[in-house]
């Protein structure tokens, strides 16, 4: 199931700089997108979401951008902090369904 892809397995950023995590999808029926953060031995923690009727959603240091024509979304973290170091998962849901389809995750490392 390759409907949601995160092509970068890892990303290293310095503290204070911007982190940009990318996600691509193939199913045009997806109408709701979420980003989760996951630490080892813990469950995914919800970060931010966006509906397909919007192209941007912002919550504090986190902003998600959705480009429907390119079937691409990105998560921006500004400024990045060492505590942001985790695996970030993009997930998508199709209208009328409850199932979340996850990407493979990107491991973010924020160094001091």
């Amino acid at each position: 199931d390759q409907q949601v892809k995160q092509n970068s397995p890892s990303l290293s950023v310095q503290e204070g700089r911007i982190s940009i995590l990318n996600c691509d999808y193939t199913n045009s029926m997806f109408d709701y997108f979420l980003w989760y953060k996951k630490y080892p031995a813990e469950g995914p923690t919800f970060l931010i979401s966006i509906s397909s009727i919007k192209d941007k959603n912002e919550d504090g240091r986190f902003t998600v951008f959705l480009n429907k024509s390119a079937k691409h979304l990105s998560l921006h973290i500004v400024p990045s902090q060492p505590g942001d170091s985790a695996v970030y998962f993009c997930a998508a849901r199709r209208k009328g369904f409850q199932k979340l389809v996850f990407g493979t995750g990107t491991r973010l490392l924020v160094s001091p």
Partner: protein
Amino acid sequence: EPEVTQTPSHQVTQMGQEVILRCVPISNHLYFYWYRQILGQKVEFLVSFYNNEISEKSEIFDDQFSVERPDGSNFTLKIRSTKLEDSAMYFCASSEESGVVDTQYFGPGTRLTVL
């Protein structure tokens, strides 16, 4: 802040044995889910549950699996006869509703090891 809890955190079982994984969803949530993550792979949807019945399931969720809400707080996943390939992290999730802007909140997971 309310959270989803799961027990046990780690379950070791012999192949062919039955296991029951338990979850307590967030109290005012109406939709409940199970996902799993095999080591090194994606998080995969298993099943969703609403109003005491399965509302959606994946092809992974075959006759070996069942879910139940035995009382007002618990939500369980039973694997009838475990296989080696059932070894994974199992995550329970819940959501308040299932509308367009619904968000699923996950528990910490149960690591299932089948020997």
